[in-house]
């Protein structure tokens, strides 16, 4: 969050993408941030704990982060701190598992996990 505020003050005003990578022993949140005037791109990679991954929201700096953070928290089970809306992106399930984590096995019935 601090880094993002810092970057924004240096002209990096356009958030392109937030995603995450599961390296099994740790997780990584990836922020692709762009400077629309200087035409420069920065990639921020934030290391997260594998057990209880959590990261602070950047929605205050980049409003574009809204849906990306929802997607990331739903697919990777990453908790987004200081976020008002907790609604998931794909509504039709309860979000009990993190399907994009490497620990997910094919065919898990999420309805039984309630």
């Amino acid at each position, binding site marked *: 969050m601090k880094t993002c505020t810092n970057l924004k003050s240096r002209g990096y*005003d*356009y*958030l*392109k*993408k937030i*995603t*995450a*990578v*599961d390296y099994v022993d740790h997780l990584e949140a*990836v922020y*692709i941030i762009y400077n*629309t005037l200087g*035409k420069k791109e920065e*990639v921020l990679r934030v290391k997260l704990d594998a057990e209880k991954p959590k990261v602070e929201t950047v929605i205050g700096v*980049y*409003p*574009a982060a*809204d*849906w990306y953070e929802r997607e990331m928290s739903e697919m990777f089970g990453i908790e987004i701190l200081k976020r008002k809306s907790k609604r998931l*992106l*794909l*509504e*039709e399930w309860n979000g009990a598992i993190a*399907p*994009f984590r490497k620990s*997910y096995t094919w065919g898990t019935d999420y309805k039984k996990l309630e």
Partner: protein
Amino acid sequence: MAVMRINIGPVHPSTHGVLRLVVDVDGDMIKRVEPHIGFLHRGVEKLMETRMYMQSPSYLEKLDYISPLSWDELYVASVEKALGAEVKQDAQVARVVMLEFQRIANHLLWLGTFCNDMGNLFTIFMWAFRERSKVLKFLEETTGGRMFYVNIRVGGLNRPLPANFADEAHGLCDYLEEKIAGYGDLIEKSSIFMERTKGVGRLSKADAVAYGAAGPVLRASGIEEDARKSKPYYIYDKIDFIVPTGYRGDTYDRYKVRYIEMQQSIKIIRQALGMLKGNDVVGAPIRLIGPQAKPDTVLLSRELPKGEGIVYMVPDKQRPYRISLRSPAFINLSLLPKLAEGSKFADLFPIFGSLDIVLGEVDR
């Protein structure tokens, strides 16, 4: 008057794929819009982790089935970057020609369906589809597939270009230029179209950047940002073309930006065809792709018809360890609440249509 909640969908509203909108209205004014997505979610990113590199392009083509070639090319180019493979000169030119034709086909389909919603019932729609089918026929002769091509291979293309590739392309450019010029009068002299688009769904320059609008939506708000210019790839740095921008950021500007983009694409194709020297375009056979020197991560962006698409890939030996796709339609759809709140209910679909969304790409 009490606020009424209207549920729209899940349907195919003025676009492609299934979407549900929950709209709160006070009389005729929209108080709140909430898009509900996920009806087409197939977990493509996860599926691709289990497939060999060159098994994936056919998945990607089903994301944005209006412009499949663009996603195909973006993905294969990121595999090329991971492998450190060079693309043959003629193949670069051929790719640019096909990508620009794909852009025209995408914008034509958008224009047809958009004018349909704007009260220009079926005239432009039929015309745009007539032109689009010529473009698809050209792409079919070149690649072998009408809608889904799976034609890009590492280092080049799947098959050599047909003998009359350049002549056909020139002929098609002349045809399209004449026909597209004819649309302008019919659309812009229609008072219904103008009344329903001018000043509707305005997006200021600051908001467009903050909310991360992509592609024509961003450019219509006055930001000159195009990956073909800011991070030129292939032969785009040798080609002379302009990036159209609007200044009001309304629905009309988003139409106009796409309209000019089609004309610019024709200009690009003509210049690119002049650079085509021979027919040495065939890339590596699929089975040859195996373990090579692998970088940590691969980040690649391309200007897709709908905006800037990005592949962020963590490559592994035979298949990607993790692949993440930035879809321009996804971020443009998230703008809908921002654009529609405070406008009239009847303006919801002009605004929605002007974003040019394919739900297959939004949900992935």
